[in-house]
């Protein structure tokens, strides 16, 4: 709560300065939120040139709309919401698919996963698991990129940026239940794909 109040005070001071013509304050806002906005844009938009234009447009939009910000959420959440909406508009214009249909599990796949799990548990001790972790991060990155744009955005926001369900719900304007459900599915798909890849590699 105290942290939230401090953030709010800092946000208020920065916004006040920008609205009174202090451009350095806006640069600070960009620097403070660039990482989060970059995460969202990178996960939602594949094309590098489009990302460059989109990110600039997002901050121009933020600059123009800053006077309408009423501090009901954190400034970073508000900017992330603008970024997410900009990406959604981009995807709509480009007619991109943002959510894929989840394939249903079948018995064969379940069996393969179970075998991979058994093997993983029997042969890998703590040290091996730690060594495996570095390698796993690379595979994980690939597998995250194979997810649908919205799912990879949610996964990264929750597990990497450590943003709460509530804040993700604010950013994406999705109900908390939907956020949780998408995350559950995305985690399961990721875990299953990692196990399948692990099994393939270990054969």
């Amino acid at each position, binding site marked *: 709560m105290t942290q939230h109040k401090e953030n709010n005070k800092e946000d208020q001071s920065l916004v006040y300065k920008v609205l009174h013509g202090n451009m350095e304050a806006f640069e600070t806002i960009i620097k403070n939120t660039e990482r989060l906005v970059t995460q969202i844009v990178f996960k939602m938009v594949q094309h590098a040139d489009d990302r460059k234009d989109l990110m600039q447009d997002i901050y121009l939009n933020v600059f123009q709309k800053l006077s309408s910000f009423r501090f009901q959420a954190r400034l970073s959440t508000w900017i992330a919401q603008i970024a997410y909406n900009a990406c959604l508009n981009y995807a709509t214009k480009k007619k991109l698919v943002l959510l894929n249909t989840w394939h249903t599990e079948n018995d064969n796949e379940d069996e393969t996963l179970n075998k991979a*799990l058994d093997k993983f548990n029997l042969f890998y001790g703590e040290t091996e698991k730690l060594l495996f972790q570095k390698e796993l991060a690379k595979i994980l990155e690939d597998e995250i990129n194979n997810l649908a744009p919205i799912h990879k955005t949610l996964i990264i926001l929750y597990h*990497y940026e450590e943003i709460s369900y509530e804040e993700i719900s604010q950013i994406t304007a999705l109900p908390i239940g939907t956020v949780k459900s998408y995350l559950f599915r995305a985690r399961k798909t990721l875990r299953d794909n990692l196990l399948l890849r692990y099994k393939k590699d270990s054969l």
Partner: protein
Amino acid sequence: MIVEHLTEKEIQQYAIDRPGCEISTVEHLETCEYCNARVASYQLMFTAFSELSAPVNEFDLSSMVMSRIKQKKKSFLPDDLFVYSLVLVALVFTGVVLYSFRYVFLQLFRNLSYTVVYSAAATIFTILLLQLIENYKKYQRKTDALDIV
């Protein structure tokens, strides 16, 4: 204690938030190797997230945005001046016309009954008021969409 294996949801919840889990879930995991392996697979995946590298822009975003803002400000200035001068000219012209033909205009209204003048004024006022309310509602909707609770 739960005899059957845990559901995927329970496994995920345990891997993410152990204290928030049901006691029966915790008890099951104390004895079930299979479910423990499932939990471990998730936990390993979650720890791998910390090894991921954050994407980095290959360009200086803040300087690009700042130069575009400055450019916009510069390009906006003549436009704004033009609009303001146009409004000023229009206002002066209207004032001159109203002043020059004031007797004609007064004559026009003198011939009308008070009822007609008042109802015309009331209609114009109502239309303007409704327009104002509509615009305010639109503004509210837009700011609400941007400013989240």
